Structure formats: C-alpha cells, structure tokens
C-alpha cells in the first residue's frame, strides 16, 4: 500500500516558505522562471519517489484547470 499524498498543513513557517518560493524567481524572465519551476518540480518529485503520490499530486494540480480531463483521484 502506497503512502497517500499529504495535504494536511505540513510546512512550518508557511509565510517564510512562500516568500522564499517567490524570491526564488526574483529578476528572472518568464522563460527562466518556467525553467526554475521545472527544476524544482523534478527535484521534489525525485525526493518523493512514490509514483502513486506523484500521480495524485499531478491530478490535484490539474484539477479544475483548462479543458479536458479532470482529476481522476477521488478525495
């Protein structure tokens, strides 16, 4: 049985984290920011490793955005 995606509050000092996330993009063009985001996602995805958790996270990220398929993962 795979672990579930943890969506409970899990980050201490949430405001600090959020500020750091935005700061990470400071002085970058949109293209550069997209690259940095992609690197960040890849680093975090590898850290998580569990395919079921990653699949769940991707479905939730996509949920309600754009046309086409909606999130497949039930709550």
């Amino acid at each position: 049985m795979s672990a579930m995606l943890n969506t409970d509050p899990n980050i201490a000092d949430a405001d600090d984290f959020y500020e750091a996330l935005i700061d990470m993009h400071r002085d970058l063009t949109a293209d550069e920011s997209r690259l940095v985001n992609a690197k960040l996602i890849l680093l975090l995805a590898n850290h998580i490793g569990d395919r079921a958790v990653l699949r769940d996270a991707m479905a939730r990220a996509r949920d309600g955005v754009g046309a086409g398929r909606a999130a497949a993962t039930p709550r």
Partner: protein
Amino acid sequence: MSGTDFQTLRLAYARSADQDAAMPVHHPVVIVGAGPVGLALAIDLAQHGVRALVLDDDDKLSAGSRAICFAKRTLEICDRLGVGDRLVAKGVSWNVGKVHFQDELAYAFDLLPETGHRRPAFINLQQYYFEGYLYERARAMQGLEVRWKNRVVAVEPHGDRVVLAVETPEGTYRVEADYAVACDGSKSPLRTMLGQEAKGRVFHDRFLIADVKMNADFPAERWFWFDPPFHRNQSVLLHMQPDNVWRIDFQLGWDVDPDEERKPERVVPRVKALLGEDAQFEFEWISVYTFACQRMERFVHGRVIFAGDSAHGVSPFGARGANSGVQDADNLAWKLALVLEGKAPAALLDSYAAEREYAADENIRHSTRSTDFITPKTEVSRSFRDAVLKLAKEHPFARRLVNSGRLSLPATLAASPLNTPDGDAFSGTMVPGATIADAPVRTGGRDGWFLGHTGNRFTVVHFSAGGEPAPEVLAGLSALADAAIPVAAVVVVGKGTVSRAAQPGASAAAAAVAELDRAAVLEDAEALLAQRFDARDGTTYLIRPDQHVCARWRRFDPASIRAALARATCNT
C-alpha cells in the same frame, strides 16, 4: 571475399527455371526483400533445414550506412547465424555515450558496465556490410536462393498457400509458397497489395544525415548534443563507423526544404560548425529523412507474414529499427520450421504475431518517448527537458530522465502464451520470456561462452553444482534428446568440478560424465552463470530455439519439461 566493395556491388539477375515452368513452382517459404531481416530469416530457416527463396526488386545492397547501430542481442543472433565474428571484427564496438547540453558535457554513461558478456552493447557498422556479410553467408548455404531484380507485383492469398506474381527483366512469372514473409521495408508493397496499412504517429521534424570520411581522433563513443552552440535549438549526434567514416545527424525542424538541405554546399557549413573551419572531410552519403512510429494491427495475415519495417516503424532514436527486425526473424524462423515439418500447429505462428506485436509496442513506446524528449513540442515540455539536462550535470537522478534514445534491448516476452509460469521461487531477470544472459564457460579445457551452447533447438540447461548429475537426471536428459521435438542438454557444473570428475580412474564421477556424451558439460568459469540465472544445485531451465526462457524449476523433472515444451510449441 572480405575485400568486396559492398557499396558498388551489383548482384546480377539470373533466369530461374521457375520462369519456364508451366505451373507456379512450389516453395515452402518465399521471403520478399533481401535486407537485414529477409536475409537473417533465410539463413535461420536454412539452418533449420527449410528451403528459403528470397526475392529482391533491386540488384544492390543498402544505399548508405542507414541502420548503423547493431545491438548486443542482434550480434548474439548473428553468432547463431554464423556471421557474428565477422560483424564484430569489422564494426566499431562501443559502450560509452556522452550527452552534451548547450556548451557543456551533461554526463556520460556506460551501456555495458559489467563484464562476462561475449558481445559489446553495440557495434557501429554500415548497413551494406551487415547485409553483405549475411548475403555471403546465405550464398554459401544449401537450400537458400536469392533472386535479384525479382519484384513481387501481385499476391494471391489462398487458405493453404499463397501465390506471388514476380516481375523480372525477362517478364513476369508466378511462384507458390506455403508461407510468404514480407520483409519489404517501411513502404511494404506487399502490405499495400493486401489492403493493409501501418498506423501510428507521424512526427513533423526532419533530420539530416551526413556521413563524412575524415581522419579524426574522437573516441568510439556516442556523442549527443542538445541545443549546442554550433546548431542552436536542435539536436546533433556524432557516431564513429569503420573505414574512417563518421555519422553526423542534425535535427533540422519541419520548415526546411529537404531538397535544398541535402545539397553538399548546404551541408558543408553545418559540418564545419561542428568540426571546425579547417576540418578536412569528404561526404560518403547525405540523406534527409522524416519518420513515423507506427505498426500494422496484425503481423500475420493467413499465409502472409510481416517482419521488420513492413510490420512496424520507429523513430531512429535508440536503434530499434533493424535490431527489432532481426529479432522478428529470430522469433519466426524456428516456428515456421516446426509448422512446416508438421511438428507444431499453425497456431504457433500466431504466437509470433502476439510476441512481436508486443515487442513492437515496446519499441514504439520507447522511441516515441525519446523523440518527445529530443524534440519537445510545447514550451513547457521544452522547459522540463532543459531542466532535466541542467540537473543531470550534478544529480544522478536526473540522468535517468535524460532520453537521447533508450538503446535497443530485447523485449522480455513475459506475457507470452508459450511461457510456463514459475511454480518455484526465483529472483533476478531470467523470467520466462526473457532472452537469456551470456556468461563465460569452460568446456573440454577451452574457454567459451554460454550462449554458443544454446539456440537453434530447444535446450534444457541443468545446473549441477557438484559436477555429478544423478543417474536419473542423465537418463531423463537422454530421453528428452530423443523426443519428437528433440531437446538438447546442457549441464552446468561448478567451477573446478569437471576436471576432477573427468580424471581417468576417477571412477563413479568419470563414468557419470562419460554418460553425458550427448550433453554439453559447461564449467561455470566465473560463477556468473549461476548468479545471472539465480541457479542452485538442481535448477533447470528450458530455453527456446531463439534463446528465450520458456520455463524454469528448482529441480529436474522430465514430465514438467515435456509439458512446458508442448506449451511452447502449441502442442497442448
């Protein structure tokens, strides 16, 4: 013979007696197309004692180096076909690849990091050599005929045979066959004649091949560049071939004029951008190509069977075209032979379709993924691609995501109906359906390779760690060799045990080994065989003629072996 210039060789049309016959002359198997797949199949069939007639519409071997990368599995099949040594002697062996991103090296990889295999991960060799060596082997065989300038122009399928109309410089004649095998390439005229098509995804991208002859001191490695300074936003591949020829492959994008791009004056600046302004080189071959990942829905249509590019097409990334085609031939030959000998029902040919359709899907999946990585279709996929390449320089995890071609490995046919599922516990990769691993062995005081003692026939491989198989095992192996479908025996003994047993006067042990005159006794020279097969004393494998695992057990049981053999030949 070795000095033949295969590029300029013309293979003369010769009139056949079939052309003067009142009625179409019957052949067991007619193969359409004398490319790598058709020739490999013809040789394999002839080795099984099945007469094969090959018809080719041309009088030349491959124009240009084309396939160039021949994978380890292809070389192992070619060992079985008797041309492996020649291919490896001429080819450039390589295991190392380097991936560059923009102006730096992202990482290097080794495709065969372990020793104890006879063949390298890959050789690079111009396709005309590959075809030329197969052709020279074919020409020396009994019961194998190649007719050049013989173009199949019509096919009449019947329930129990197929009739082909063949056009020659001296008019059209007809031949009849139990089976016709279409090895006639990606545009397969036979496929069209049967009203069939290959469906899939066409990629809107063009690539330029420049084969250049030059004296260069680059190592024998595969160098791949993503977005290099000398060819911005596109990919480039550099590969060494024999005869001081280098393959350079430039991605061009879709919006270029292929006729313009293949003009030497257009190609020279691209090559100089890579090699330097002062580079001295001559062009051997220039080609602009596109590709599609597609396959026929079914590879067997009654008495007409499709193999190689006619059945399935892939992108060139990963060298899965010719390599998978040769594996098609490897899979088909023994099945056709058993069916034609009346030792297996035609259902066995359906397993060819099932197994190779599965393998084609795997190849298409891998080569499509490579293509999507190399040529990202959206801004965001480009960002992820570049992110992977940036991270790859420092982070091993990201290297596993870099996909410049997942280089051809044989499919493990785990879901094949010919397999007998495991009843005993095993670990490792030698599952039913896998191609067997190689390892060094000693026999009769000489060093050799395990794979050379398997293939062409069904083979039981019995591991006997102590060097002395029990008498009932010896009797069982002997009985299997006499079955309607004979099963060859290989006994693998622990390192050092065979010499002890074979000493004169070593009584019981010597007598036991003498009993084995119908079996090959192999010493597991570096104990790698037992390791790679997760074998213990008593472990027994049944291996197919194409060197795939059929079944395995922890002890020798003739009844189980017979049942697995029946299943593997559809005789149930």
